[in-house]
């Protein structure tokens, strides 16, 4: 019999001390498994937390911890990013594996996909070399049943000599049994099964080689290949004993048919663009009405607040600070940013839940391959739509350090939800007549899609440039698992995206916006020379701004908006208003008039949109980039490169439009 830790010492040495279970007061249970088998869903169900889940491998890139109680005992549950085996391929997998090897966990729950059991069982067998306390959780049983795959868990438990629980975490089925079984395994309720777990016997030369490490008969690669195939073969044998398949396999057929559409030569490309445009169209059209109601409501409220403050004799200067500074910036963010976010996020999450995103990576891989990048960069770009900082963290799914840097540097070319409503607002203010007209909203969606595609192209182009200059190297291998399509859980998606994401992002924006509003109001009201500090700064930046097709105020707003891109437009509004032309800002058209009276034309709007697409990442993203790369050089380059690209594009566009 071969114990895994001998084996691991031979291959891979975890750093740090081994801590025994008795050193800790809590019972620690690790949640391991292949990627995309629903570990995070199991985790959320057991702990009641809200880890983000999605239908693609690599959604969880960092370990998460939570607690659950069963029978009066507290258990600490650790969700580990997915892995295929105990051979690490990247620093993050190494960390996950190290955690398991360190013996910090009292028990390990190995989550397996019922529809793809053999690979899960192979991991179970490898885990069995590490610890006796294993609980096998056969998840996604509902989905497998729809595919005509049925797992006999009793037989599987008998064959493996381990407790096995069948679950369907998405629907909450089997979670009670899982918790109870985990508690039993840790010896806290009921007697532990005395049965010895299954141990895999490897071919003789390898057993010999490991029991006598001095003996150098075989090289590392051969051992890995041989043990991996023994495991898979044994896992196959186990599975064939306890998995039954219906002859009729209509569901998998449906998947293949969908794949033919979504990855077809013409239809695949068309679907990508059409889906993107459709999502934008729904967002622009749907966000328009609540935006108008909200800004009208806030407009009325503003008058009321002004009267109130005046009535209780608040000094004029404080009134200005609170109303013109803090209140206006905050209400702008709520009325203009919230509706598009609240529509775009759920729609995007639905696509993610359905399993479409990996198909996008699959379709775009050859493009990215030619740019020297990894196809998974498409996935991290997609995450960038939500938040660039999240996208940068997500780049951990890319194994090659070179390709990961490419993905990190180019992530900010994708407008995050802070910049995205700004684009929709500018498009509807300057490039369309009225958004309510169906033709105009379609045109708006088309323009936005074009703009996003431009951002994507820029990220491809910069990847190409970088891989020819600073990040030279051969593209590494690319393996991507395409998960089955799943029917998205609409209600849970709505709930999750509104409460977890939208409100969180909004809260962060508001937290930044209120002080920023105050700061800029103060800047606009402290006299300096002939004007104020703000007008002096704007004046100083004016030549640069003009050269880029904008003006000093816009550039200043972008600079001051670095903590959160959401506040760029409110900063512009405030700066313009401080320069004299006070308007009643009850709706979008009033803002448009304000901009126009300050010399805005369609060309200014276009350049502002282009610059918004390509400029420095927000401060949160910069900090995240530093954390991920641990390199000041790459953090600075991730700021300089998009800014340079934006400057070139804007200057070019401005020159072109001046010419016509």
């Amino acid at each position, binding site marked *: 019999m071969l114990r895994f830790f001998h084996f691991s010492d031979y291959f891979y040495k975890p750093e740090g001390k081994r801590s025994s279970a008795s050193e800790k007061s809590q019972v620690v249970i690790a949640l391991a498994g292949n990627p995309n088998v629903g570990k995070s869903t199991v985790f959320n169900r057991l702990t009641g937390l809200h880890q983000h889940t999605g239908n693609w491998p690599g959604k969880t890139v960092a370990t998460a911890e939570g607690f659950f109680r069963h029978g009066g005992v507290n258990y600490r549950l650790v969700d580990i990013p997915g892995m295929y085996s105990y051979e690490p391929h990247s620093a993050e997998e190494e960390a996950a594996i190290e955690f398991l090897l360190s013996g910090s966990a009292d028990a390990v729950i190995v989550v397996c996909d019922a529809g793809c059991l053999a690979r899960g069982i192979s991991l179970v067998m490898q885990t069995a070399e590490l610890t006796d306390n294993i609980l096998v959780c056969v998840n996604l049983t509902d989905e497998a049943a729809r595919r005509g795959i049925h797992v006999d868990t009793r037989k599987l438990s008998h064959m493996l000599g381990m407790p096995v629980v069948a679950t369907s975490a998405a629907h909450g089925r089997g979670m009670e049994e899982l918790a109870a079984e985990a508690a039993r395994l840790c010896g806290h309720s009921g007697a532990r099964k005395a049965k010895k777990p299954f141990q895999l016997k490897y071919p003789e030369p390898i057993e010999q080689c490991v029991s006598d490490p001095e003996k150098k008969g075989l090289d590392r690669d051969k051992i890995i290949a041989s043990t991996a195939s023994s495991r898979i073969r044994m896992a196959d044998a186990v599975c064939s004993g306890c998995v039954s398949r219906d002859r009729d396999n209509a569901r998998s057929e449906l998947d293949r048919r969908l794949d*033919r559409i979504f990855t077809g030569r013409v239809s695949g490309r068309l679907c990508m663009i059409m889906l993107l445009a459709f999502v934008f169209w729904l967002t622009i059209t749907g966000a328009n009405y609540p935006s108008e109601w909200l800004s009208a409501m806030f407009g009325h409220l503003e008058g009321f607040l002004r009267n109130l403050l005046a009535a209780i004799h608040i000094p004029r200067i404080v009134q200005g600070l609170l109303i013109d500074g803090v209140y206006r910036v905050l209400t702008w963010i709520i009325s203009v940013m919230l509706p598009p976010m609240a529509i775009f996020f759920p729609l995007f999450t639905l696509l993610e839940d359905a399993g479409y995103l990996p198909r996008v990576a699959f379709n775009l891989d*050859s493009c990215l*391959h030619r740019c020297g990048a990894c196809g998974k960069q498409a996935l991290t770009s997609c995450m960038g739509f939500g938040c660039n900082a999240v996208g940068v963290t997500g780049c951990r799914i890319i194994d090659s350090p070179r390709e990961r840097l490419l993905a990190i540097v180019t992530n900010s070319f994708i407008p995050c939800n802070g910049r995205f409503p700004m684009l929709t607002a500018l498009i509807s203010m300057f490039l369309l007549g009225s958004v309510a007209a169906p033709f105009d909203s379609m045109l708006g969606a088309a323009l936005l899609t074009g703009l996003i595609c431009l951002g994507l192209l820029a990220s491809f182009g910069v990847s190409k440039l970088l891989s020819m200059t600073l990040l030279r190297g051969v593209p590494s291998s*690319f393996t991507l698992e395409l998960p089955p399509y799943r029917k998205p859980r609409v209600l849970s998606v709505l709930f999750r995206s509104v409460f977890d994401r939208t409100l969180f992002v909004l809260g962060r924006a508001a937290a930044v916006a209120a002080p920023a509003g105050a700061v800029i109001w103060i800047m606009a009201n402290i006299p300096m020379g002939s004007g104020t500090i703000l007008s002096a700064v704007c004046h100083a930046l004016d030549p640069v701004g003009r050269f880029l097709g904008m003006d000093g105020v816009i550039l200043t707003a972008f600079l001051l908006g670095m903590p959160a891109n959401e506040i760029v437009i409110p900063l512009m509004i405030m700066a313009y208003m401080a320069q004299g032309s006070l308007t009643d800002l009850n709706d979008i058209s009033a803002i448009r008039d304000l901009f126009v009276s300050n010399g805005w034309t369609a060309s200014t709007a276009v350049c502002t949109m282009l610059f918004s697409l390509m400029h420095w990442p927000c401060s949160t993203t910069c900090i995240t980039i530093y954390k991920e790369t641990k390199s000041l050089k790459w953090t600075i380059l991730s700021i300089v490169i998009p800014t340079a690209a934006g400057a070139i594009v804007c200057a070019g566009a401005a020159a072109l439009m001046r010419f016509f």
Partner: protein
Amino acid sequence: MDNSECALCDLRDGECGRVLSAGGCRELGRRLLDLGFVEGAFVKRLFAAPSGDPAAYGICGAVIALRADDASGIAVKKTSPPEFW
């Protein structure tokens, strides 16, 4: 069905094979082993991306996308499809 040996990337859509050896460079080789491309495993080429590369293969009940460069290191023997595909 012709029982010839070829590289995995030479299979056409819908064709099946049995893996003879999973080669490639070290890093990729290990990744492929983890995904189930071990000697004797059944593999089926399912469909290709719009540009023809990468292609998706069915293995071990999962669908895995591989670039032609990476799949060329895997030798397969063409077979008729096993009972359940």
